[in-house]
């Protein structure tokens, strides 16, 4: 999805920047964005929202010029599912693969196309509206012909990026954000390759192929798109490629065929620049790669090469920049510990970033001292976990949880039969063997070090945690079953924190308050602050029937002491306050 702005930047693997000392001082910008494609516009939006000094350079007269030519047969491969049966806007982004993130609900792609696989022209129109309505600061018709580094101790990153445009005008930038897409089509050399018509130049008129034998190299989305177009008129179509056909619903990778369509995979090392998991160039500090070109971070794993993936990674990069250059910490919400289970449940059930960029972006929970409260940070690049404190400006001294969505180890892979027997896991006990995308919670007592992240065990996304929890898979990605999902998660969190995270009614808290020296967190943070949960008669009766509550009113005289916390003084360290005896037998 991105071949545009042919700057000479991508001539070889990685980045080759002409390191010329350039004393000319042009116009200064804190942030320069190259390319007004989806990624560039997305970054411009965040920079603008944060009030940062920035500009976008675009060589064409409008945004999203890629879509003027590609895909050649005009149909986008990204789904536009307009009705999900749910109202939750965040959740719906899980099924909207074309919208960029913004505060304006009118700028959702569903308002631009009704097609499930929309037309590229609609995307052009959408991007134009996005740039215009949000008044993004884009310099059109500006081709950056030359980029140099200007070393300067005063600069944020030790150097400035000096950009020269086609008019010879220079622009000095503290941070350079490259969102130009990919510019090198795969070149295949073999006898007869001179007869090859590239995807970018092939005719899209079926009549040109009337009665011919056509050999299509590749079996990716472009190949099938082309084949489908000319199928009715040709004599014979051969398709040739190194690997067998990969269907995206088998690999969960959009770059694989989504029911017979998509782009060229393969020559990975040639196509993508070398960047870190934070999307910063390994060679030049302050240079970030956004959008399709940043796909190396999660190539063949997640959706980072596509709009519905990079809209989140761009946001992550922006958050890193805010912390690095403006001291604005990674956004977080602080909660009392009683909200721990809930906060995780809410996110895994609705978050779209976690879902689209599974195993790349993960939520992080930082525990505060004594684990009475915690901070919730969303969508952090999980491979940068060791550098979390510097990148986010938050402290991780008292342990942390990482919440990720993962496929089972047995699931993915193009050769596997996704409908193999026993592929779905039903019991919570076997949750760790879940195959479909499911939440995984890692608990670390201490922030892992860079070494630990780098030398983690094979097959592990993160270093070995102190404890791990898998929430059992659910076909509807609805992880709200009280016993199937919530209870095991609570038990896991409780055991990590060595505390009791159950909720209690006010009456139970009342009893505990007068019969024990310590109270469970839910009583401390609710009842003791006069915010106890009173409950109703119906609920009380159910509680009594379940054996978890006692009916004191019916007890009469003499009272029977099966109640909570009935412990002789020396058994004071007992763990189980309720139903002591019952649980022992």
């Amino acid at each position, binding site marked *: 999805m991105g071949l545009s702005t042919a700057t000479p930047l991508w001539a070889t693997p990685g980045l080759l920047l002409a390191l010329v000392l350039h004393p000319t001082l042009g116009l200064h910008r804190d942030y320069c964005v190259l390319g007004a494609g989806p990624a560039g516009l997305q970054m411009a939006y965040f920079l603008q929202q944060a009030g940062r000094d920035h500009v976008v350079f675009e060589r064409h007269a409008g945004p999203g010029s890629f879509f003027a030519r590609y895909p050649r047969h005009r149909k986008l491969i990204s789904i536009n599912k307009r009705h999900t049966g749910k109202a939750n806007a965040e959740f719906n982004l899980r099924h909207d693969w074309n919208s960029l993130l913004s505060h304006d609900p009118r700028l959702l792609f569903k308002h631009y196309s009704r097609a499930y696989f929309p037309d590229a022209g609609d995307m052009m129109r959408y991007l134009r509206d996005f740039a215009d309505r949000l008044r993004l600061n884009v310099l059109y018709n500006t081709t950056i012909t030359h980029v140099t580094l200007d070393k300067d101790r005063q600069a944020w990153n030790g150097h400035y990026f000096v950009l020269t445009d086609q008019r010879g005008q220079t622009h000095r930038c503290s941070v350079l954000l490259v969102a130009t897409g990919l510019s090198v089509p795969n070149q295949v050399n073999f006898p007869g390759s001179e007869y090859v018509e590239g995807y970018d130049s092939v005719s899209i008129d079926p009549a040109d192929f009337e009665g011919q034998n056509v050999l299509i190299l590749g079996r990716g989305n472009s190949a099938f798109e082309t084949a489908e177009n000319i199928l009715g008129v040709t004599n014979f179509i051969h398709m040739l490629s190194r690997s067998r056909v990969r269907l995206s619903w088998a690999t969960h990778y959009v770059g694989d065929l989504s029911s017979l369509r998509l782009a060229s995979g393969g020559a990975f090392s040639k196509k993508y620049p070398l960047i870190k998991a934070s999307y910063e160039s390994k060679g030049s500090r302050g240079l970030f790669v956004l959008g399709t070109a940043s796909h190396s971070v999660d190539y063949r794993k997640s959706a980072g090469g596509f709009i519905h993936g990079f809209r989140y990674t761009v946001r992550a990069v922006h958050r890193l920049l805010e912390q690095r250059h403006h001291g604005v910490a990674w956004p977080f919400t602080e909660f009392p510990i009683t909200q721990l289970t809930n906060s995780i449940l809410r996110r895994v059930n609705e978050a779209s970033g976690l879902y689209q960029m599974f195993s790349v972006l993960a939520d992080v929970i930082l525990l505060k001292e004594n684990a009475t409260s915690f901070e919730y940070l969303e969508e952090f690049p999980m491979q940068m976990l060791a550098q979390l404190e510097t990148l986010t400006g938050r402290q991780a001294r008292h342990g942390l949880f990482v919440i990720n969505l993962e496929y089972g180890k047995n699931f993915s892979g193009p050769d596997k039969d996704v409908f193999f027997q026993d592929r779905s896991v039903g019991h919570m006990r076997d949750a760790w063997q879940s195959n479909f995308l499911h939440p995984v919670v890692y608990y670390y007592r201490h922030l892992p070090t860079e070494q630990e992240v780098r030398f983690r065990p094979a097959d592990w996304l993160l270093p070995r945690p102190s404890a791990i929890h898998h929430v059992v898979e659910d076909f509807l990605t609805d992880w709200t079953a009280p016993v199937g999902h*919530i209870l*095991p998660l609570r038990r896991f969190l409780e055991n990590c924190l060595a505390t009791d995270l159950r909720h209690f009614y006010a009456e139970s808290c009342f009893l505990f308050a007068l019969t024990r020296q310590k109270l469970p967190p839910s009583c401390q943070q609710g009842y003791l602050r006069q915010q106890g949960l009173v409950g109703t008669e119906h609920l009380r009766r159910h509680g009594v029937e379940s054996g978890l509550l006692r009916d004191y009113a019916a007890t009469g005289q003499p009272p029977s002491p099966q109640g909570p916390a009935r412990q002789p003084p020396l058994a004071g360290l007992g763990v189980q306050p309720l139903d002591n005896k019952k649980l022992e037998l």
Partner: protein
Amino acid sequence: MMFSSFSVFRIGVSFVLMCVLTKATVVPVPELSPQRYFSTLQPGKASLAYFCQDAPMHKPRERKHPDFPNLTSCTFIFNLISIQGILVSYVNCVQEETAKYCGKEKDLMKAYLFRGNILLREFPPDTLFDVNAVVAHVLFALLFNEVKYIATLEDLQNIENALKGKANIVFAYVKAIGTSEHRAVMEAAFVYGTTYQFVLTTEFALLESIGTEDIEYAHLYFFHCKPVLDFTQECRKTLMEQSLTTLNIHRFMKTMEAPLLTEVAEDPQQVSTIHLQLGLPLVFIVSQQVTYAADRRTAEWVAWRLLGKAGVLLLLRDSLEVNIPQHTNVIFKRAEEGMQVEYLVLHDVDLIISHVENNVHTEETQEEEEEDDELEGPDIDIQDDEVAESVYRDRKRRLPLELTVELTEETFSRTVMASDSIVLFYASWEAVSMAFLQSYVEVAVQLKGTSNMLLCRINCGDWSDICTKQNVTEFPVIKMYKEGENPVSYVGMLGTEDLLKFIQLNRISCPVTITSIQEAEEYLRGKLYEELISYSRVSILGIFSPTMITAIENFTKAGNSLRGYVLTGIYSEEDVLLLSDKYATTVPALLLARHEERHTVSMPLSSTSAQDIVQIITDALLETFPEITVENLPTYLRLQKPLLILFSDGSINHKYKEVMAALIKQKHLDSLTPCWLNLKNTPAGRGILQVYFDLLPPLPLLVLVNLHSGGQVFAFPSDQSITEQNLLLWLKKFEAGLERHIRVLSAAEWKPPLPAYDFLSMIDAETSQHAPRKDPECMKETDVQENYKEQHEDTSKVTIKHLRNRNWFEVEKAFLPDKEL
């Protein structure tokens, strides 16, 4: 063989106990004629005789016993043992019909117990249905003085009191007389009856009063009454956890007799105590000179908790010649011979206990486990959250939700702007908010048609964006939206009554502006807002002269932040002096009208910051002798003072109120929070009393609870009447530290109720199992398959094992540095 060492003279029956333990020895029971039988009776010797109408030897009748269909009424006696030297005879009535003990009905068997030739007891035909019944009944009759049968708690209390400082008690509950458990208890009493007082009951209420709820099983407790010197102190109780068999009871008794804690200074490998002989492990607490006192306390604590399960010893490391690993603080020695002692580093008493229990458990239950994997104790998949469970169980009931307005993204802003609204933000998967939704609907029902406040709700599971925009990140949240005002969050109790009060009190502005003296008087008398008085027992009126602009502003702010919780009004007209004079104060001041007591007090406002005013009002709302309830306890707990609670079944006698009032007035109760609890209004109070008292004295009952420092509970002697004088004296004793507490409240932390699935080790287990498969070179094809099969079978086992191995974090903790022990 256990009893062989005891040769005892008992009840005038002289005999040597040979072997009564294991299997019943089949001894032919002599068949005698009645005449012959009576001639054999020796003075002082007990004998049991069966009188039967038929001749079992010759023509056994096939009449089935109802409970034991395999036994005919007479013949089964032949299989009886001769009980512990008691002569058991069979008397055939057919031979001599005149014998008076022979029943009248032909086939009725009767049994009689004689001592010498004195009849002790006649047994109805159906009582002696099997061996256990015979032994139990006979011993029960013979040991009449040694084993007290009781039916009420009072009996038990009396025995306990009578024996304090003198002897220990063995208290047993059996479901019925004549059972095998009963027999086991009686056999134990036969041996230990002179050493301990045996008490037997079949009343489960009694058992419950001691704190057990499993009346399905027999229980045996050892009451340590001998060491109790203070009459008010209770006897410590140890529950025997094994099943009631003669062997188990014997073992239990032996451990009760053994010293609680032994100090040793020799190689733990060599140490042996009675516990090892009884098959119980030993726990050594390693101590050093420096920490001796603390270690001894810990060891005693451990010893009490392990009483009957393991022997506890204090090992003095300094004088020890053998080397033990440096950080070891606990040594565990199994009862099995030839086992190496384990050197452990455990930093929590609970860990020691669980270590012992886990190890003992495996020995005992190994066989059971194979039979029945289900009986593993608490199931971690069973809900133990009372809120989640009750909400789940109630999920099918339809709530009258139509009384509340459901909002969506489109309707939200429109609705809350158009009218005064309350909005409940909830999530349908979140238990607390769903529980509260029920109360919310109850409020809607009560307000139906009477309020202009619109009750709305929004499901944040659907409308996440709206909730986030309204700053709602947790559930449930209740906000009130009024035109032209910032939304106000409700921060009271999540219940029907409190929310209703909040809504009702918000019908008027807060503080409400009073415009004339007359109106002020009406306001203070509760006439101005009569319908609201039931929601606010106190009305506050701030009085200011019109020039006090900042004070007025601050009071307005304070009143605003108290909106929904108390009625506040403000009066700042020129003639305000009329009011201040009347209530003998100077402006600025607060007038506080307590409607129930019909009196108004005044308080000058020295400090006038809004925050201070809120504090003054909140403090003023506290009563001096409140009835404590579930709802108001937190307010009083904030004072951080010991509670002096008068428990009462129903409302309290006026004279107690007077006593308290007098003491409060004399400032004797300043360091306490005096209050009372009405069990009728607050039934949970019963649960509290059950924790405080083993045996509930009659109500009303005065208790002092030192919640915030130490957790001791003191009870005002129930034999004294609650008078000013007595109470004062008692409090003085308490302050001087002379009063003994009846209970110390548990200071236990709230640990996870149950363990979690240990996925990490499950993954590890799988990884390690896969390891050999990576090296296929040395395996032939068949081997691989077999191997695979084995591994496959193994997997299931491993999974189960890991499930058992639940205290995964506990174990890990043991390796963390900690200096608690």
